[in-house]
């Protein structure tokens, strides 16, 4: 795109101009700065960081990566007063200002001497006249001199002046680049500080994750408790009321209708027949309402169980896995080995993650392994961690890397969130075998 290229070129030229301008500024400010050096030096613990910050600001202005040394969000004055006792003051600010001063000296001479030479070369031919002859002399070098009295005689000084100007600007540009490099290099926090900052960040993230997992656990517990104490109990109460109603309706049916004697005589009045019919309908309605309530309770119970199985909370991972085998949609056997102390040491986020991973693995096995497949779950626990193998003898061929395997990918992620690993071995036709290893306590929950 020519337009963009043009824009880029203009931008580059703009930056170059800026760099040159800044170097010129340094040159111009050189003498005043030298004059001001004595008071500045006396208050060096304040002026040095300020000068360094100013240099960084200027460097940033020209697009260099020179972040301010002042921490964001803190009070600038406090930072400035305390800067002198920080290592970075001596490691970064002092070299930056001293280096900058050296650069400024160079700028001063380059811009000053070079500027004067270029100026004379450029202006000389115009003022050369018989009254004011211009003498171009290289006598000391090559013993050659030339005296000119008109522009025509020394017009060739103009291209030399132009070349000199270009060289001068080039030098200043190079100085600008060098200054930017130096400023950037002396602005980056050093590796140690960086490592400390990153470590702090990792700790922060880990505690954030722990908080999140804890909050999620607490939320599960809250939902489960509310369903148990709320909806479930009210539904049970409703079932109880319906049961009592059915009982009464049953008794009512047993009581002789008012027209009983006529019935004995073989004459059933319409009202008695209607009454019996209504009672039967009532009982049928109550019974079907009862079935509805029971079905609701069943589905509610499965929901509650899916959120957080009570057996897992109250009895731990091993009985919960045994219980899971009874619920599994395919024949499953569970074996658990390990010392009681180690089994008891498995912490809550690990039990929850492992339990739901195994439940999902069994659901997957029932879905993909084939109708005659069987599964087994083997858990072994040592003080160093736990291993759970979920195997089936089904069709195999599960590929955790295929785009459709979001379940396996999610499972892997959840296992990794407790510092564990999930290996999936599923050769086509050879059954699927998930091997889950995890520490008893997630790394982020350790003291």
């Amino acid at each position, binding site marked *: 795109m020519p337009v963009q290229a043009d824009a880029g070129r203009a931008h580059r030229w703009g930056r170059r101009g800026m760099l040159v301008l800044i170097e010129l500024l340094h040159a111009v400010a050189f003498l005043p700065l030298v004059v001001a050096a004595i008071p500045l030096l006396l208050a060096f613990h304040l002026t040095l960081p300020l000068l360094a910050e100013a240099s960084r600001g200027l460097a940033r202005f020209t697009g260099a990566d020179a972040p301010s040394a002042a921490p964001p969000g803190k009070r600038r004055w406090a930072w400035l007063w305390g800067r002198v006792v920080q290592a970075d003051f001596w490691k970064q600010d002092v070299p930056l200002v001293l280096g900058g001063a050296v650069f400024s000296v160079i700028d001063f001479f380059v811009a000053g001497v070079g500027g004067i030479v270029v100026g004379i070369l450029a202006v000389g031919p115009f003022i050369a006249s018989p009254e004011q002859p211009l003498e171009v002399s290289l006598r000391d070098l090559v013993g050659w001199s030339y005296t000119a009295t008109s522009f025509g005689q020394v017009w060739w000084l103009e291209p030399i002046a132009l070349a000199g100007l270009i060289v001068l600007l080039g030098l200043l540009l190079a100085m600008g680049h060098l200054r930017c490099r130096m400023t950037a290099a002396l602005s980056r926090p050093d590796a140690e500080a960086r490592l400390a900052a990153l470590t702090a960040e990792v700790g922060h993230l880990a505690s954030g994750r722990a908080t999140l997992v804890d909050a999620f656990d607490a939320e599960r517990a809250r939902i489960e408790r509310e369903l148990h104490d709320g909806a479930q109990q009210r539904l049970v109460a409703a079932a109880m009321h319906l049961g009592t109603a059915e009982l009464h309706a049953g008794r009512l049916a047993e009581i002789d209708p008012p027209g009983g004697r006529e019935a004995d005589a073989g004459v059933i009045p319409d009202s008695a027949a209607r009454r019996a019919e209504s009672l039967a309908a009532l009982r049928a309605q109550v019974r079907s309402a009862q079935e509805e*309530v029971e079905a609701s309770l069943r589905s509610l119970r499965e929901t509650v169980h899916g959120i957080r199985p009570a057996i897992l909370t109250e009895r731990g991972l091993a009985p919960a896995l045994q219980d899971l085998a009874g619920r599994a949609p395919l024949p499953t056997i569970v074996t658990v080995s390990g010392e009681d102390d180690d089994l008891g040491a498995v912490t809550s986020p690990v039990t929850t993650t492992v339990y739901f991973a195994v439940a999902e693995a069994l659901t997957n096995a029932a879905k993909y392994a084939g109708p005659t497949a*069987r599964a087994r779950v083997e858990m072994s626990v040592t003080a160093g961690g736990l291993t759970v193998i979920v195997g089936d003898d089904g069709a195999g061929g599960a590929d955790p890397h295929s785009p459709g395997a979001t379940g396996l990918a999610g499972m892997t992620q959840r296992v990794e969130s407790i510092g564990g690993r999930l290996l999936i071995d599923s050769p086509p036709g050879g059954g699927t075998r998930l091997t889950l290893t995890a520490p008893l306590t997630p790394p982020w929950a350790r003291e």
Partner: protein
Amino acid sequence: MRIVLADDAALLREGLAGLLAAAGYEVVAQVADADALREEVERLAMAGAPPDVVVTDVRMPPTGTDDGLRAAIDLRAAYPGLPVVVLSAYVAGPYLRELLDGPDAGAGGAGYLLKERVGRVSDFLHSLDVVAAGGVVVDPEVLARLMRAGSSSNFAGRGGLEPAQGATHAADGRRAGLADRADGGGRDVEGTALARLTPREQEVLALMAEGLSNSQVAERLVVSDGAVAKHVASIFAKLDLPPEEGNRRVRAVLTWLRARA
């Protein structure tokens, strides 16, 4: 029949008390937590009039977890023969097994029913009667799950996937009950005995576990009473329960449940 009722939800406790009273049962005490339940039963027993049945919820104060179940297990241990019915919101084999695993488990009636079962009033009252008489009643839904879990043990027995070597343990405080199923080999022995039962006999045994009498089983399976009696006798023989053994029905059911729960 004198009943002690324990449930922390006043709504359910009152409703249940009303229902039992309407059916002619006497609720001698209502309590709202596990400690009060223990104290109340102790008080009644000291007075020389222990309740005929204790009906308790699983989840109760003080900890709001399985305190009711623990209290029931303690009471069965402290007062052998005390009939206990546990009402639960969970289909959990381990709970049932712990309830039935006491040192003298065959001595007294026990029941494990899902809460909604109280809505089937006549069934519920029948369950109370069976338990009060020393029988065992387990919720049909729990049984259905145990039968599914049991079929997996059977396939392990066929040797498709060999069980891993090594001890089986449960993870928590009352692990003894679960641990002995592999360590002591009790489950295996019972499992083998059960494996000798025909599918029909297993079906009959499961219905017996629901607390049904022979004639009720016959009705459910649409066969004659005689056929059921024959199955039952065969079950007793295969499970090694000679006629002189007391309460063979309960023992057969317990054997079945121990192997499955």
